[in-house]
């Protein structure tokens, strides 16, 4: 395994992050992103070869117009006395994804052996490549749709470990990295196979860095639901798929052929994703009448998430178009707050309505679609409004 530097950076002929900046200058010790002068944007815009389609598109757009993020950074830089390096650093910034994939070799030891770094060519291991591409697709959604620079908003390098554990039937975000099992081969295949699951897990990282929704009860179900929302949006965004053409399935393709089921969950029709003689029937409720009180699963976080999931999908389908531009944008605005970490469904619903008003206006189709959707699933935000 070679440790090649990012070719985009290594070919930079002028000082950038590689130079030692004075105190106060922009400095990225982990290579989370580069400070990219305009002449390099053209190179990034051609980076599709590295599987960075969306980042490349973002770079192309940046060549044409200032993004909000870019304005922000230019302002930040301009607010302090400039040194020559800072003047260089004041060149427009484009966040660049920085992925690292490791292989746990079917142990539970993290991080495992490094097998693919950013811009390395694909390996012969499909799990490695799916993880790499999935991290890239999630990064691209966050940046392209929300102007968010990675999971933490500050260019966090995206790290993942594949082949975790023995017949391990799960994928999770451990607070720092994504971890994927290979599945047991009977019920589940490899967990990298679903882009929506990769997006789901990374979104737990986004929630961790933003609303910090407590993983218990209704706030936990909202935490789960936001991860499903982002998982679905990552898939739709990477396919260029409109809301009314989307499957709204989470975890499609994870089950083996032996299982009677399409996916882990259906956002548009909770409770219908699978019906199998061994797994049983998908237990998710579709509205508050079916809300499940249980002590298991941190208070049913994977069950009751069906309710806000359906609200999102209903509103998105009603609006049509790209879900990440309408309802998705509202949900993202909601999660970055202000929102209580112990928010209930009703509080979250209120927050989405407030966010929709700010983003799209009091008379917007977005606002009325979201209001209707919460009502359909039995979460009446107006119960709380005084």
């Amino acid at each position: 395994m070679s440790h090649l530097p990012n070719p985009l950076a290594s070919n930079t002929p002028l000082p950038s992050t590689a130079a030692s900046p004075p105190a106060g200058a922009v400095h990225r010790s982990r290579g989370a992103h580069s400070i990219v002068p305009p002449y390099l944007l053209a190179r990034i815009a051609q980076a599709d070869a590295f599987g960075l389609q969306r980042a490349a598109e973002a770079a192309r757009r940046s060549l044409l117009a200032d993004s909000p993020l870019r304005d922000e950074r230019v302002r930040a830089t301009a607010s302090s006395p400039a040194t020559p390096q800072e003047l260089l650093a004041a060149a427009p910034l484009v966040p660049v994804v920085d992925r690292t994939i490791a292989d746990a070799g079917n142990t539970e030891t993290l991080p495992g052996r490094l097998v693919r770094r950013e811009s390395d060519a694909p390996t012969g291991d499909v799990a490695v490549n799916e993880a790499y591409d999935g991290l890239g697709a999630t990064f691209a959604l966050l940046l392209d749709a929300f102007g968010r620079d990675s999971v933490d908003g500050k260019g966090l390098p995206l790290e993942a470990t594949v082949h975790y554990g023995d017949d391990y039937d799960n994928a999770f975000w451990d607070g720092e990295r994504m971890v994927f099992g290979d599945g047991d081969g009977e019920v589940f295949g490899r967990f990298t196979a679903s882009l929506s699951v990769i997006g789901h897990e990374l979104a737990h990282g986004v929630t961790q860095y933003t609303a910090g929704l407590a993983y218990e009860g209704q706030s936990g179900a909202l935490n789960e639901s936001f991860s499903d929302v982002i998982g679905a949006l990552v898939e739709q965004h990477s396919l260029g798929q409109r809301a009314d053409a989307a499957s709204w399935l989470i975890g499609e393709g994870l089950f083996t052929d032996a299982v009677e089921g399409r996916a882990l969950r259906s956002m548009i029709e909770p409770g219908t994703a699978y019906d199998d003689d061994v797994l049983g029937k998908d237990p998710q409720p579709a509205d508050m009448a079916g809300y499940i009180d249980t002590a298991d699963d941190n208070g049913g976080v994977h069950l009751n998430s069906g309710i806000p999931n359906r609200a999102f999908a209903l509103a998105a389908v009603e609006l049509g178009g790209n879900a990440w531009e309408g309802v998705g944008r509202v949900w993202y605005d909601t999660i970055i707050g202000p929102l209580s970490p112990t928010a209930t469904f009703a509080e979250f619903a209120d927050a989405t309505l407030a966010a929709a008003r700010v983003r799209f206006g009091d008379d917007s189709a977005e606002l009325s679609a979201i209001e209707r959707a919460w009502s359909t699933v039995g979460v009446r935000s107006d119960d709380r409004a005084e």
Partner: protein
Amino acid sequence: MTEQSDERRGGAQVGDAPGSDSAGDGGPGGGSTQDGAPGSGSARDGAVSGDNATGDGSAPDDGHGSGSVRNDAPGSRAGRDDGPGSDAGGDGADGSDSASGDSSPGSSSSADMPARELRITVARTGGVAGLRPSWTVTASEPADVDSWLSLVESCPWNGPEPVDADPDRFVYTIRVLQPETERDAQVPERHLGPWRDLIDRVKKASST
């Protein structure tokens, strides 16, 4: 899908107690007792499906992790058996018990059990899939019971209650039923360490 996963998540088994390499354990009444032991049907039926069904979830909590209260579970089969050890073999030979049993692993009380019987159920919740598989072993042969018990005793039953839940990680619920006692613990995957041997052995014994 049926056989593979049924087998994998199957119900009670005997003869695979820790340290015992005898597959058959031909002790008197051994196999039949296991099959018919209260809860063995629940282990099979409830492996995933019963507990994962909406009905189960919406029902009151069946007592998982609620401490060691005996004989209070809904659907308790107390009264079916005349007493410890009675009719164990016959009960076991009657396959219909399994079918008619309830589907909750916590539904049978330790009071129903033969004097030396030991039942261990491991249920797993969480995970991105939100499924709820469970595994159960039952032992009645003294050597097997002792062997399992020593493994059970090696676990930190009085350890500190773990707090912070990790998104999408597994949480294991371990329940050990004996005629006079019931022990429960909830263990997040992150803190599995001292429990791993017991959990792995229950899974393995349950699937052989």
